[in-house]
């Protein structure tokens, strides 16, 4: 087993602590522009996800990748979590 590249759960606020490192989060897709997705982070700030899949707007998307800066994640893996997530 290998544990050399763990990913930290982040929101927009703590993404700043993990710039350059592998992170994971779930965003709600707000805009889809070519290879970039703008989504809302769990704490309500916009995040840009690069190289993302084509996920419908207002769906939730889990992103797993490297944080490029405070507001951008370069995605390695994206997963469509569907339209309802985190709601009771």
């Amino acid at each position: 087993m290998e544990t050399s590249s763990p990913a930290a759960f982040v929101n927009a606020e703590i993404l700043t602590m993990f710039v350059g490192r592998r992170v994971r989060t779930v965003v709600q897709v707000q805009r889809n522009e070519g290879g970039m997705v703008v989504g809302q982070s769990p704490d309500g700030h916009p995040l840009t996800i690069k190289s993302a899949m084509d996920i419908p707007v207002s769906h939730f998307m889990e992103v797993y990748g490297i944080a490029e800066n405070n507001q951008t994640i370069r995605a390695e893996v994206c997963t469509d979590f569907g339209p309802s997530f985190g709601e009771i």
Partner: protein
Amino acid sequence: MAGSKGSFPARPRLSPLISRQAPPPLGLPSLLPPPPPVATSAAAARQSAMMSQDFSPSQFTPSQNAADSTTPFKMRGASGTMPLTVKQIADAHQSGTGEKGAPFVVDGVETANIRLVGMVNGKTERNTDVSFTLDDGTGRLDFIRWVNDASDSSETVAIQPITDFNEVTLHFIQCVRMHIENTKSKVGSPTRTGSSMGVSGSNGFSESSTPTSLKSTPAPMTIGSNGSSTDLNTQVLNIFREPANIESEHGVHINEIAKRLKLPEAKIREAIAFHEDAGHIYSTIDEFHYKSAFAD
């Protein structure tokens, strides 16, 4: 496929068979190259797998190609499974004695049955077995699923897809909670009185609390406990909040609590009534069985 859209906290359809879960296979080529730096959208199959001690042939579909499929997998754990991350397993494995057949020790708690949630990739099908890698974000773990697995084999694995992605968040919350409970009970107070009250007090009934809020629960959750003679209500609640009882579908029989605390049933009834009114517990199959409402 036994996918679950079940609402929290109910977890129906637990598999009934119980057999020992051996530690993950050793000696496998476990060093994998890190994931490529480009978005692997085509290969990004969302398959989550949980290891449990029971195998059900209908729940595993070897025909599904990990590279192309977007159907996720989850696993049903039987009662007594412990939610873990790959990192916890790796740490436990390194610190354990490594004896064959010895159960895992995680956070000081011996565990035979474990539950993992992660993404399946690198699936390889052979004549006798299917092997794949599970990546849960904390590390990668190799699995081998033998095709002709007997039901009484000691290395049974059950894998199911995930359809409700809240299960992912829930699993990690459970991992954190189990870790906190197990490490807190080793440190400080002799009973776990304070820890359970602390969790129920700070999070209330909100199932929507995010992972961060659970992790940021203040460290001294053990509110002053002066030993077993203080609060009957708290003791009764502690019994309900034990991991084995939380996992059990029917909860705890009132007689068992009376036996454990060596108190008359009437007193236990009072405590149960108190907790039921407060919403901490609820009755399950009959009026003698109760279960903690803060269960999984």
